[in-house]
Protein backbone atom coordinates (compact mmCIF):
# COMPACT_ATOMS: atom_id res chain seq x y z
CA UNK A 1 0.00 0.00 0.00
CA UNK A 2 1.76 3.12 -1.17
CA UNK A 3 0.42 5.71 1.21
CA UNK A 4 1.12 9.38 0.73
CA UNK A 5 4.18 10.60 2.62
CA UNK A 6 3.23 10.89 6.23
CA UNK A 7 6.12 12.47 8.05
CA UNK A 8 4.45 15.79 8.63
CA UNK A 9 1.27 14.40 9.98
CA UNK A 10 3.21 11.97 12.05
CA UNK A 11 5.15 14.66 13.89
CA UNK A 12 1.87 16.30 14.64
CA UNK A 13 0.38 13.15 16.07
CA UNK A 14 3.36 12.34 18.17
CA UNK A 15 3.74 15.81 19.58
CA UNK A 16 0.07 15.76 20.46
CA UNK A 17 1.17 13.09 22.88
CA UNK A 18 -1.31 10.37 22.17
CA UNK A 19 1.31 7.69 22.29
CA UNK A 20 3.28 7.27 25.46
CA UNK A 21 6.86 8.35 25.53
CA UNK A 22 8.52 4.97 25.71
CA UNK A 23 12.09 4.30 26.61
CA UNK A 24 14.39 2.66 24.11
CA UNK A 25 14.77 -0.40 26.26
CA UNK A 26 11.89 -2.77 26.84
CA UNK A 27 11.66 -3.03 30.60
CA UNK A 28 8.50 -4.86 31.56
CA UNK A 29 8.77 -7.82 29.25
CA UNK A 30 5.70 -9.87 28.32
CA UNK A 31 7.00 -11.71 25.27
CA UNK A 32 10.49 -12.71 24.31
CA UNK A 33 11.10 -13.97 20.79
CA UNK A 34 14.42 -15.54 19.88
CA UNK A 35 15.15 -16.59 16.33
CA UNK A 36 11.49 -17.35 15.74
CA UNK A 37 10.66 -19.02 12.43
CA UNK A 38 7.20 -19.83 11.15
CA UNK A 39 6.79 -22.11 8.18
CA UNK A 40 4.00 -23.70 6.18
CA UNK A 41 5.22 -27.05 4.93
CA UNK A 42 8.53 -26.32 3.21
CA UNK A 43 7.84 -22.62 2.91
CA UNK A 44 9.24 -20.38 5.62
CA UNK A 45 6.91 -17.43 5.93
CA UNK A 46 8.97 -15.51 8.45
CA UNK A 47 12.52 -16.04 9.69
CA UNK A 48 14.87 -15.01 12.44
CA UNK A 49 12.62 -12.80 14.48
CA UNK A 50 14.11 -11.76 17.79
CA UNK A 51 12.45 -9.08 19.85
CA UNK A 52 10.84 -8.37 23.20
CA UNK A 53 7.37 -6.97 23.76
CA UNK A 54 6.61 -4.66 26.64
CA UNK A 55 3.66 -4.84 28.99
CA UNK A 56 0.83 -2.32 28.64
CA UNK A 57 2.21 -0.94 25.44
CA UNK A 58 0.91 -1.07 21.90
CA UNK A 59 3.33 -2.73 19.59
CA UNK A 60 2.68 -2.41 15.86
CA UNK A 61 3.89 -4.80 13.18
CA UNK A 62 4.11 -3.03 9.87
CA UNK A 63 5.45 -3.97 6.47
CA UNK A 64 4.43 -4.78 2.92
CA UNK A 65 2.15 -7.67 2.00
CA UNK A 66 3.72 -11.08 2.33
CA UNK A 67 6.26 -10.04 4.95
CA UNK A 68 4.86 -12.51 7.44
CA UNK A 69 3.55 -10.04 10.01
CA UNK A 70 0.07 -11.61 10.26
CA UNK A 71 1.59 -15.06 10.34
CA UNK A 72 3.85 -13.95 13.16
CA UNK A 73 0.92 -12.43 15.06
CA UNK A 74 -1.03 -15.68 14.85
CA UNK A 75 1.91 -17.46 16.47
CA UNK A 76 1.42 -15.51 19.68
CA UNK A 77 -1.80 -17.33 20.60
CA UNK A 78 -1.07 -20.53 18.71
CA UNK A 79 -3.72 -19.88 16.10
CA UNK A 80 -1.23 -21.22 13.57
CA UNK A 81 -1.73 -24.63 15.16
CA UNK A 82 -5.04 -24.75 13.35
CA UNK A 83 -3.45 -24.46 9.93
CA UNK A 84 -2.31 -27.85 8.66
CA UNK A 85 1.41 -27.92 8.02
CA UNK A 86 2.18 -24.77 9.97
CA UNK A 87 5.23 -25.03 12.19
CA UNK A 88 6.73 -22.60 14.68
CA UNK A 89 10.38 -22.98 15.63
CA UNK A 90 12.65 -20.97 17.86
CA UNK A 91 11.54 -19.42 21.13
CA UNK A 92 8.32 -17.55 21.81
CA UNK A 93 8.21 -17.04 25.54
CA UNK A 94 5.31 -15.51 27.45
CA UNK A 95 6.51 -14.32 30.85
CA UNK A 96 9.50 -16.58 30.37
CA UNK A 97 7.52 -19.68 29.47
CA UNK A 98 7.81 -21.11 25.97
CA UNK A 99 4.21 -21.22 24.78
CA UNK A 100 5.19 -23.93 22.33
CA UNK A 101 6.59 -26.02 25.16
CA UNK A 102 5.47 -29.65 25.43
CA UNK A 103 3.11 -29.21 28.39
CA UNK A 104 1.50 -25.97 27.30
CA UNK A 105 -2.20 -26.15 26.50
CA UNK A 106 -3.03 -23.96 23.48
CA UNK A 107 -6.52 -23.42 24.89
CA UNK A 108 -5.05 -21.79 28.00
CA UNK A 109 -2.70 -19.73 25.86
CA UNK A 110 -5.65 -18.37 23.88
CA UNK A 111 -7.49 -17.45 27.07
CA UNK A 112 -4.58 -15.30 28.19
CA UNK A 113 -3.88 -13.93 24.74
CA UNK A 114 -7.03 -12.83 22.95
CA UNK A 115 -7.41 -11.96 19.32
CA UNK A 116 -9.35 -9.53 17.15
CA UNK A 117 -9.51 -10.37 13.49
CA UNK A 118 -9.40 -8.39 10.29
CA UNK A 119 -13.05 -8.93 9.43
CA UNK A 120 -15.40 -8.44 12.41
CA UNK A 121 -16.31 -12.07 13.04
CA UNK A 122 -19.24 -11.72 15.38
CA UNK A 123 -21.10 -14.94 16.12
CA UNK A 124 -24.58 -15.47 14.68
CA UNK A 125 -26.05 -14.83 18.14
CA UNK A 126 -27.37 -11.91 20.12
CA UNK A 127 -25.08 -9.09 21.23
CA UNK A 128 -25.35 -10.33 24.79
CA UNK A 129 -24.50 -13.92 23.89
CA UNK A 130 -21.54 -12.80 21.84
CA UNK A 131 -19.96 -11.23 24.91
CA UNK A 132 -21.07 -14.00 27.26
CA UNK A 133 -19.74 -16.76 25.01
CA UNK A 134 -16.11 -16.59 26.14
CA UNK A 135 -16.89 -16.61 29.88
CA UNK A 136 -19.37 -19.45 29.35
CA UNK A 137 -17.03 -21.76 27.48
CA UNK A 138 -14.30 -21.01 30.00
CA UNK A 139 -16.65 -21.58 32.94
CA UNK A 140 -15.85 -18.17 34.38
CA UNK A 141 -17.96 -17.64 37.46
CA UNK A 142 -19.32 -14.13 37.37
CA UNK A 143 -22.53 -12.21 37.27
CA UNK A 144 -22.99 -12.41 33.54
CA UNK A 145 -25.13 -9.28 33.22
CA UNK A 146 -22.52 -7.22 35.03
CA UNK A 147 -19.70 -8.74 33.04
CA UNK A 148 -21.43 -8.05 29.73
CA UNK A 149 -22.07 -4.46 30.72
CA UNK A 150 -18.53 -3.99 31.94
CA UNK A 151 -16.99 -5.38 28.75
CA UNK A 152 -19.30 -3.47 26.44
CA UNK A 153 -18.54 -0.30 28.39
CA UNK A 154 -14.82 -0.89 28.12
CA UNK A 155 -15.25 -1.44 24.40
CA UNK A 156 -17.10 1.90 24.11
CA UNK A 157 -20.19 0.18 22.82
CA UNK A 158 -22.51 0.02 25.83
CA UNK A 159 -24.34 3.30 25.23
CA UNK A 160 -25.12 2.31 21.66
CA UNK A 161 -26.43 -1.18 22.36
CA UNK A 162 -27.71 -1.25 25.95
CA UNK A 163 -31.33 -1.38 24.80
CA UNK A 164 -30.69 -3.96 22.09
CA UNK A 165 -28.71 -6.63 23.89
CA UNK A 166 -31.03 -9.37 22.67
CA UNK A 167 -30.77 -8.28 19.05
CA UNK A 168 -28.63 -10.16 16.58
CA UNK A 169 -25.06 -8.96 16.42
CA UNK A 170 -25.46 -8.87 12.66
CA UNK A 171 -27.72 -5.84 13.05
CA UNK A 172 -24.71 -3.76 14.09
CA UNK A 173 -22.56 -1.72 11.73
CA UNK A 174 -19.06 -2.91 10.84
CA UNK A 175 -17.40 -0.61 13.34
CA UNK A 176 -19.81 -1.60 16.09
CA UNK A 177 -19.25 -5.26 15.26
CA UNK A 178 -15.52 -4.81 15.63
CA UNK A 179 -16.00 -3.15 19.02
CA UNK A 180 -18.29 -6.03 19.97
CA UNK A 181 -15.50 -8.44 19.03
CA UNK A 182 -13.17 -6.45 21.30
CA UNK A 183 -15.73 -6.61 24.13
CA UNK A 184 -16.06 -10.34 23.55
CA UNK A 185 -12.31 -10.68 23.68
CA UNK A 186 -11.83 -8.83 27.00
CA UNK A 187 -14.70 -10.78 28.58
CA UNK A 188 -12.37 -13.74 29.14
CA UNK A 189 -9.96 -11.37 30.95
CA UNK A 190 -6.89 -11.78 28.79
CA UNK A 191 -3.62 -10.02 29.44
CA UNK A 192 -2.75 -9.52 25.80
CA UNK A 193 -4.91 -8.59 22.80
CA UNK A 194 -3.68 -9.42 19.33
CA UNK A 195 -5.22 -7.34 16.57
CA UNK A 196 -4.83 -8.43 12.99
CA UNK A 197 -5.56 -5.36 10.86
CA UNK A 198 -8.62 -4.56 12.98
CA UNK A 199 -9.62 -1.54 10.91
CA UNK A 200 -8.99 -2.94 7.45
CA UNK A 201 -12.68 -3.22 6.66
CA UNK A 202 -13.82 -0.05 8.44
CA UNK A 203 -14.43 3.52 7.32
CA UNK A 204 -12.29 6.37 8.74
CA UNK A 205 -14.78 7.33 11.47
CA UNK A 206 -15.13 3.79 12.73
CA UNK A 207 -11.36 3.45 12.49
CA UNK A 208 -10.85 6.53 14.62
CA UNK A 209 -13.17 5.09 17.27
CA UNK A 210 -11.25 1.82 17.36
CA UNK A 211 -7.96 3.69 17.61
CA UNK A 212 -9.24 5.76 20.55
CA UNK A 213 -10.41 2.56 22.12
CA UNK A 214 -7.01 0.96 21.65
CA UNK A 215 -5.33 3.78 23.53
CA UNK A 216 -7.85 3.31 26.32
CA UNK A 217 -7.32 -0.44 26.42
CA UNK A 218 -3.55 -0.04 26.45
CA UNK A 219 -3.84 1.22 30.04
CA UNK A 220 -4.90 -2.26 31.03
CA UNK A 221 -3.84 -4.65 28.29
CA UNK A 222 -0.79 -5.34 26.21
CA UNK A 223 -1.74 -4.89 22.58
CA UNK A 224 -0.06 -6.18 19.45
CA UNK A 225 -1.42 -4.84 16.22
CA UNK A 226 -0.69 -5.73 12.62
CA UNK A 227 -1.54 -2.90 10.30
CA UNK A 228 -1.13 -1.94 6.69
CA UNK A 229 -1.87 1.62 7.60
CA UNK A 230 1.32 3.39 8.61
CA UNK A 231 -0.45 6.44 9.93
CA UNK A 232 -2.34 4.11 12.21
CA UNK A 233 0.87 2.57 13.50
CA UNK A 234 2.26 6.06 14.02
CA UNK A 235 -0.89 7.26 15.77
CA UNK A 236 -1.55 4.45 18.17
CA UNK A 237 1.56 2.42 18.78
CA UNK A 238 4.32 2.86 21.28
CA UNK A 239 6.72 0.57 19.55
CA UNK A 240 6.93 -0.48 15.93
CA UNK A 241 8.49 -3.48 14.26
CA UNK A 242 9.08 -3.13 10.55
CA UNK A 243 9.12 -6.32 8.49
CA UNK A 244 9.88 -6.81 4.87
CA UNK A 245 9.72 -9.60 2.35
CA UNK A 246 13.07 -10.62 0.94
CA UNK A 247 14.55 -13.21 -1.36
CA UNK A 248 17.20 -15.41 0.17
CA UNK A 249 20.25 -16.80 -1.67
CA UNK A 250 18.09 -19.52 -3.18
CA UNK A 251 15.54 -17.03 -4.43
CA UNK A 252 12.93 -18.03 -1.83
CA UNK A 253 10.70 -15.20 -0.64
CA UNK A 254 10.34 -14.88 3.11
CA UNK A 255 9.54 -12.34 5.78
CA UNK A 256 12.18 -10.76 7.97
CA UNK A 257 12.32 -8.27 10.82
CA UNK A 258 14.22 -5.20 9.66
CA UNK A 259 13.94 -2.75 12.48
CA UNK A 260 12.30 -2.56 15.87
CA UNK A 261 12.14 0.35 18.25
CA UNK A 262 10.01 3.10 19.75
CA UNK A 263 7.52 4.28 17.16
CA UNK A 264 8.79 7.83 17.46
CA UNK A 265 12.24 6.68 16.44
CA UNK A 266 11.12 4.33 13.66
CA UNK A 267 9.12 7.05 11.99
CA UNK A 268 11.38 10.04 12.57
CA UNK A 269 14.84 8.54 12.48
CA UNK A 270 14.79 5.07 11.00
CA UNK A 271 18.17 3.36 11.15
CA UNK A 272 17.63 1.17 8.12
CA UNK A 273 17.32 2.42 4.55
CA UNK A 274 14.49 -0.07 3.85
CA UNK A 275 12.45 1.26 6.74
CA UNK A 276 12.95 4.80 5.59
CA UNK A 277 11.91 3.92 2.04
CA UNK A 278 8.81 2.19 3.25
CA UNK A 279 7.53 4.79 5.67
CA UNK A 280 8.21 7.61 3.27
CA UNK A 281 6.10 5.83 0.68
CA UNK A 282 8.90 5.11 -1.76
CA UNK A 283 8.21 1.40 -1.63
CA UNK A 284 5.57 -1.02 -0.40
Amino acid at each position, binding site marked *: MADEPIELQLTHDLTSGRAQQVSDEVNNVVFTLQDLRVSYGDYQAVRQVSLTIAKSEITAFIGPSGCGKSTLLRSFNRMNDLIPGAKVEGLLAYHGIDIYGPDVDPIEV*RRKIGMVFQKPNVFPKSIYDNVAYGPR*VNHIKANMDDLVEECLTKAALWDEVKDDLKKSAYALSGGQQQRLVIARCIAVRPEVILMDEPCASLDPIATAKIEDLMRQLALEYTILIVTHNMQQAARVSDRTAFFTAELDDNGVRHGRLVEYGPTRQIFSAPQDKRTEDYISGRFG
Partner: protein
Amino acid sequence: MSAPDTAAPLAAPSQVQAELLGSRPPLRDRAFRLALFISLTIGVVTLAVLIAYVTIKGWPRLNSTLWTNMPSIRRPERAGAQSAITGTLWVIGFTALFALPTGILAALHLEEFSKPNGRFQRLVEVNIQNLAAVPSIVYGILGLAFFARALALGQSVITASLTLSLLILPIVIISTREALRAVPRNIRDGSLALGATEWQTAYRQTLPAAIPGIATGVILALSRAIGEAAPLLLLGAVTFITFNPTGPLSGYTTLPIQIFNWTKDSREEFQILASATIVLLLVLLLAMNFAAILIRNRTQKRW
Protein backbone atom coordinates in the same frame (compact mmCIF):
# COMPACT_ATOMS: atom_id res chain seq x y z
CA MET B 1 -4.37 25.10 -22.21
CA SER B 2 -7.44 27.03 -23.11
CA ALA B 3 -10.81 26.63 -21.49
CA PRO B 4 -12.52 23.32 -22.26
CA ASP B 5 -14.00 23.73 -25.69
CA THR B 6 -17.53 22.54 -25.54
CA ALA B 7 -17.78 22.48 -29.27
CA ALA B 8 -15.22 19.71 -29.73
CA PRO B 9 -16.16 17.68 -32.76
CA LEU B 10 -17.65 14.32 -31.84
CA ALA B 11 -16.43 11.15 -33.49
CA ALA B 12 -18.37 10.21 -36.57
CA PRO B 13 -21.66 8.93 -35.08
CA SER B 14 -22.17 6.30 -37.70
CA GLN B 15 -18.91 4.60 -36.75
CA VAL B 16 -19.69 4.54 -33.02
CA GLN B 17 -23.13 3.29 -33.76
CA ALA B 18 -21.77 0.47 -35.87
CA GLU B 19 -19.42 -0.53 -33.03
CA LEU B 20 -22.05 -0.40 -30.34
CA LEU B 21 -24.59 -2.42 -32.26
CA GLY B 22 -22.06 -5.22 -32.66
CA SER B 23 -21.79 -7.61 -35.49
CA ARG B 24 -22.22 -10.98 -33.83
CA PRO B 25 -24.95 -13.06 -35.44
CA PRO B 26 -27.78 -13.55 -32.94
CA LEU B 27 -28.64 -16.97 -34.33
CA ARG B 28 -26.40 -19.06 -32.09
CA ASP B 29 -27.56 -17.14 -29.08
CA ARG B 30 -31.15 -17.89 -29.87
CA ALA B 31 -30.54 -21.53 -30.68
CA PHE B 32 -28.84 -21.99 -27.33
CA ARG B 33 -31.67 -20.35 -25.45
CA LEU B 34 -34.17 -22.49 -27.29
CA ALA B 35 -32.26 -25.64 -26.33
CA LEU B 36 -32.31 -24.55 -22.69
CA PHE B 37 -36.01 -23.87 -22.84
CA ILE B 38 -36.82 -27.22 -24.46
CA SER B 39 -34.82 -29.08 -21.84
CA LEU B 40 -36.68 -27.28 -19.10
CA THR B 41 -40.04 -27.95 -20.73
CA ILE B 42 -39.41 -31.69 -21.02
CA GLY B 43 -38.92 -31.98 -17.29
CA VAL B 44 -41.72 -29.71 -16.18
CA VAL B 45 -44.30 -30.91 -18.69
CA THR B 46 -43.65 -34.56 -17.91
CA LEU B 47 -44.19 -33.94 -14.23
CA ALA B 48 -47.30 -31.86 -14.88
CA VAL B 49 -48.81 -34.50 -17.15
CA LEU B 50 -48.05 -37.20 -14.60
CA ILE B 51 -49.64 -35.28 -11.76
CA ALA B 52 -52.67 -34.35 -13.87
CA TYR B 53 -53.11 -37.95 -15.00
CA VAL B 54 -53.04 -39.52 -11.56
CA THR B 55 -55.16 -36.76 -10.09
CA ILE B 56 -57.87 -37.15 -12.70
CA LYS B 57 -57.75 -40.91 -12.56
CA GLY B 58 -57.68 -41.09 -8.80
CA TRP B 59 -60.21 -38.29 -8.26
CA PRO B 60 -63.20 -40.53 -7.47
CA ARG B 61 -61.30 -42.09 -4.59
CA LEU B 62 -59.64 -38.96 -3.25
CA ASN B 63 -61.82 -38.73 -0.17
CA SER B 64 -61.58 -39.56 3.49
CA THR B 65 -62.07 -43.31 2.97
CA LEU B 66 -58.53 -43.28 1.58
CA TRP B 67 -57.16 -42.70 5.05
CA THR B 68 -59.93 -44.05 7.23
CA ASN B 69 -60.29 -47.49 5.64
CA MET B 70 -57.94 -50.45 5.54
CA PRO B 71 -56.91 -52.21 2.34
CA SER B 72 -59.26 -54.94 1.19
CA ILE B 73 -58.90 -57.51 -1.55
CA ARG B 74 -62.50 -58.53 -1.93
CA ARG B 75 -64.16 -55.14 -1.66
CA PRO B 76 -62.07 -52.65 -3.66
CA GLU B 77 -64.84 -50.07 -3.51
CA ARG B 78 -64.37 -49.78 0.26
CA ALA B 79 -60.62 -50.26 0.43
CA GLY B 80 -58.39 -47.51 1.87
CA ALA B 81 -54.73 -47.01 2.59
CA GLN B 82 -54.75 -46.34 6.32
CA SER B 83 -52.32 -49.10 7.24
CA ALA B 84 -49.93 -47.86 4.56
CA ILE B 85 -50.12 -44.29 5.84
CA THR B 86 -49.46 -45.22 9.45
CA GLY B 87 -46.84 -47.73 8.31
CA THR B 88 -45.03 -45.01 6.39
CA LEU B 89 -45.10 -42.71 9.41
CA TRP B 90 -43.75 -45.42 11.70
CA VAL B 91 -40.99 -46.42 9.31
CA ILE B 92 -39.94 -42.84 8.55
CA GLY B 93 -40.01 -41.90 12.22
CA PHE B 94 -37.61 -44.66 13.14
CA THR B 95 -35.49 -44.00 10.06
CA ALA B 96 -35.07 -40.40 11.19
CA LEU B 97 -34.26 -41.61 14.70
CA PHE B 98 -31.44 -43.83 13.43
CA ALA B 99 -30.07 -41.89 10.48
CA LEU B 100 -30.06 -38.31 11.79
CA PRO B 101 -27.84 -38.55 14.86
CA THR B 102 -25.51 -41.02 13.16
CA GLY B 103 -25.22 -39.01 9.97
CA ILE B 104 -24.81 -35.63 11.64
CA LEU B 105 -22.20 -36.88 14.11
CA ALA B 106 -20.32 -38.67 11.34
CA ALA B 107 -20.27 -35.50 9.27
CA LEU B 108 -19.16 -33.47 12.27
CA HIS B 109 -16.28 -35.83 12.83
CA LEU B 110 -15.21 -35.73 9.19
CA GLU B 111 -15.53 -32.00 8.83
CA GLU B 112 -14.34 -30.70 12.19
CA PHE B 113 -12.19 -33.27 13.87
CA SER B 114 -10.41 -35.52 11.42
CA LYS B 115 -7.26 -34.35 9.71
CA PRO B 116 -8.26 -32.65 6.48
CA ASN B 117 -7.02 -34.50 3.42
CA GLY B 118 -5.58 -37.20 5.63
CA ARG B 119 -5.55 -40.71 4.25
CA PHE B 120 -8.35 -41.83 6.56
CA GLN B 121 -10.56 -38.92 5.63
CA ARG B 122 -10.08 -39.43 1.91
CA LEU B 123 -10.82 -43.13 2.23
CA VAL B 124 -14.03 -42.45 4.12
CA GLU B 125 -15.00 -39.72 1.71
CA VAL B 126 -14.67 -41.93 -1.36
CA ASN B 127 -16.61 -44.65 0.43
CA ILE B 128 -19.47 -42.35 1.33
CA GLN B 129 -19.74 -41.04 -2.19
CA ASN B 130 -19.82 -44.59 -3.51
CA LEU B 131 -22.40 -45.63 -0.94
CA ALA B 132 -24.64 -42.79 -2.08
CA ALA B 133 -24.51 -44.28 -5.57
CA VAL B 134 -25.33 -47.86 -4.54
CA PRO B 135 -28.73 -48.96 -5.90
CA SER B 136 -31.35 -49.13 -3.21
CA ILE B 137 -32.14 -52.78 -3.96
CA VAL B 138 -28.65 -53.65 -2.72
CA TYR B 139 -29.51 -52.12 0.63
CA GLY B 140 -32.60 -54.32 0.56
CA ILE B 141 -30.43 -57.40 0.21
CA LEU B 142 -28.20 -56.21 3.05
CA GLY B 143 -31.23 -55.51 5.23
CA LEU B 144 -32.70 -58.90 4.51
CA ALA B 145 -29.49 -60.77 5.27
CA PHE B 146 -28.35 -58.74 8.26
CA PHE B 147 -31.30 -57.13 10.04
CA ALA B 148 -34.11 -59.52 9.10
CA ARG B 149 -32.19 -62.79 9.32
CA ALA B 150 -28.89 -62.42 11.21
CA LEU B 151 -30.38 -60.14 13.87
CA ALA B 152 -33.68 -61.99 13.59
CA LEU B 153 -35.71 -58.78 13.44
CA GLY B 154 -37.92 -60.31 10.78
CA GLN B 155 -40.32 -58.38 8.59
CA SER B 156 -40.74 -55.54 11.03
CA VAL B 157 -40.88 -51.76 11.09
CA ILE B 158 -37.44 -51.76 12.70
CA THR B 159 -35.88 -53.79 9.88
CA ALA B 160 -37.29 -51.41 7.30
CA SER B 161 -36.16 -48.36 9.27
CA LEU B 162 -32.63 -49.64 9.77
CA THR B 163 -32.34 -50.50 6.10
CA LEU B 164 -33.67 -47.13 4.97
CA SER B 165 -31.37 -45.45 7.50
CA LEU B 166 -28.37 -47.04 5.83
CA LEU B 167 -29.75 -45.98 2.48
CA ILE B 168 -30.04 -42.30 3.37
CA LEU B 169 -27.03 -42.13 5.70
CA PRO B 170 -24.64 -41.10 2.90
CA ILE B 171 -27.05 -38.36 1.82
CA VAL B 172 -27.38 -37.08 5.39
CA ILE B 173 -23.60 -37.10 5.83
CA ILE B 174 -22.91 -35.36 2.55
CA SER B 175 -25.52 -32.64 3.03
CA THR B 176 -24.50 -32.07 6.65
CA ARG B 177 -20.89 -31.70 5.59
CA GLU B 178 -21.90 -29.17 2.96
CA ALA B 179 -23.80 -27.21 5.59
CA LEU B 180 -20.88 -27.32 8.03
CA ARG B 181 -18.48 -26.27 5.32
CA ALA B 182 -20.65 -23.25 4.53
CA VAL B 183 -20.06 -21.90 8.05
CA PRO B 184 -17.23 -19.41 7.64
CA ARG B 185 -13.83 -20.29 9.02
CA ASN B 186 -13.65 -17.02 10.92
CA ILE B 187 -16.51 -18.02 13.22
CA ARG B 188 -14.54 -21.08 14.29
CA ASP B 189 -11.40 -18.94 14.64
CA GLY B 190 -13.29 -16.42 16.75
CA SER B 191 -14.48 -19.14 19.08
CA LEU B 192 -11.12 -20.89 19.37
CA ALA B 193 -9.35 -17.58 19.96
CA LEU B 194 -11.52 -17.10 23.05
CA GLY B 195 -10.16 -20.28 24.54
CA ALA B 196 -13.02 -22.55 23.52
CA THR B 197 -12.10 -26.15 22.83
CA GLU B 198 -12.67 -27.69 19.41
CA TRP B 199 -15.62 -29.59 20.79
CA GLN B 200 -17.18 -26.44 22.29
CA THR B 201 -16.64 -24.65 19.01
CA ALA B 202 -18.28 -27.41 17.00
CA TYR B 203 -21.17 -27.85 19.42
CA ARG B 204 -21.88 -24.22 20.28
CA GLN B 205 -20.97 -22.40 17.07
CA THR B 206 -20.55 -24.48 13.95
CA LEU B 207 -23.42 -26.90 14.43
CA PRO B 208 -26.07 -24.30 15.38
CA ALA B 209 -24.97 -22.10 12.50
CA ALA B 210 -25.30 -25.05 10.12
CA ILE B 211 -28.72 -26.21 11.32
CA PRO B 212 -30.78 -24.64 8.50
CA GLY B 213 -28.59 -26.34 5.91
CA ILE B 214 -28.65 -29.61 7.81
CA ALA B 215 -32.44 -29.50 8.17
CA THR B 216 -32.88 -28.94 4.47
CA GLY B 217 -30.63 -31.85 3.57
CA VAL B 218 -32.19 -34.13 6.15
CA ILE B 219 -35.74 -33.48 4.97
CA LEU B 220 -34.76 -34.16 1.40
CA ALA B 221 -33.07 -37.39 2.49
CA LEU B 222 -36.17 -38.47 4.41
CA SER B 223 -38.41 -37.71 1.45
CA ARG B 224 -36.19 -39.99 -0.59
CA ALA B 225 -36.71 -42.71 2.01
CA ILE B 226 -40.49 -42.22 1.97
CA GLY B 227 -40.63 -42.87 -1.74
CA GLU B 228 -38.49 -45.99 -1.63
CA ALA B 229 -40.17 -49.28 -2.52
CA ALA B 230 -37.39 -51.49 -3.87
CA PRO B 231 -35.53 -52.37 -0.67
CA LEU B 232 -38.79 -52.88 1.21
CA LEU B 233 -40.00 -55.32 -1.44
CA LEU B 234 -37.03 -57.49 -0.63
CA LEU B 235 -37.68 -57.14 3.08
CA GLY B 236 -41.04 -58.79 2.64
CA ALA B 237 -43.27 -55.77 2.96
CA VAL B 238 -45.46 -57.00 0.13
CA THR B 239 -47.62 -58.99 2.47
CA PHE B 240 -51.21 -57.95 2.71
CA ILE B 241 -51.48 -55.81 5.82
CA THR B 242 -54.79 -54.58 7.18
CA PHE B 243 -53.65 -53.31 10.52
CA ASN B 244 -51.68 -50.31 11.77
CA PRO B 245 -48.25 -51.05 13.20
CA THR B 246 -48.37 -51.45 16.96
CA GLY B 247 -44.67 -51.12 17.68
CA PRO B 248 -41.18 -51.35 16.23
CA LEU B 249 -41.39 -55.11 15.83
CA SER B 250 -44.83 -55.06 14.26
CA GLY B 251 -45.50 -55.91 10.62
CA TYR B 252 -46.14 -52.97 8.31
CA THR B 253 -46.77 -51.75 4.83
CA THR B 254 -45.93 -48.38 3.32
CA LEU B 255 -47.46 -46.13 0.66
CA PRO B 256 -45.13 -47.08 -2.21
CA ILE B 257 -45.62 -50.76 -1.42
CA GLN B 258 -49.39 -50.37 -1.25
CA ILE B 259 -49.34 -48.56 -4.60
CA PHE B 260 -47.23 -51.35 -6.03
CA ASN B 261 -49.66 -53.97 -4.75
CA TRP B 262 -52.69 -52.24 -6.16
CA THR B 263 -51.20 -51.54 -9.57
CA LYS B 264 -50.42 -55.26 -9.83
CA ASP B 265 -54.12 -56.02 -9.50
CA SER B 266 -55.98 -56.00 -12.81
CA ARG B 267 -59.27 -54.70 -11.41
CA GLU B 268 -60.05 -51.12 -12.48
CA GLU B 269 -61.09 -50.05 -8.97
CA PHE B 270 -57.64 -50.84 -7.68
CA GLN B 271 -56.03 -48.84 -10.48
CA ILE B 272 -58.11 -45.84 -9.42
CA LEU B 273 -57.24 -46.45 -5.80
CA ALA B 274 -53.54 -46.63 -6.69
CA SER B 275 -53.76 -43.29 -8.49
CA ALA B 276 -55.44 -41.70 -5.49
CA THR B 277 -52.69 -43.08 -3.22
CA ILE B 278 -50.01 -41.76 -5.58
CA VAL B 279 -51.55 -38.30 -5.23
CA LEU B 280 -51.43 -38.70 -1.46
CA LEU B 281 -47.76 -39.73 -1.57
CA LEU B 282 -46.93 -36.84 -3.89
CA VAL B 283 -48.66 -34.37 -1.61
CA LEU B 284 -46.66 -35.73 1.31
CA LEU B 285 -43.39 -35.42 -0.61
CA LEU B 286 -44.17 -31.95 -1.90
CA ALA B 287 -45.08 -30.86 1.61
CA MET B 288 -41.74 -32.10 2.90
CA ASN B 289 -39.81 -30.40 0.11
CA PHE B 290 -41.79 -27.24 0.73
CA ALA B 291 -40.87 -27.40 4.40
CA ALA B 292 -37.21 -27.74 3.39
CA ILE B 293 -37.44 -24.66 1.18
CA LEU B 294 -39.24 -22.77 3.93
CA ILE B 295 -36.53 -23.54 6.46
CA ARG B 296 -33.86 -22.52 4.01
CA ASN B 297 -35.54 -19.22 3.20
CA ARG B 298 -36.48 -18.29 6.74
CA THR B 299 -32.98 -18.70 8.02
CA GLN B 300 -31.03 -17.01 5.27
CA LYS B 301 -27.35 -16.97 5.97
CA ARG B 302 -26.25 -13.60 7.19
CA TRP B 303 -22.51 -13.80 6.85
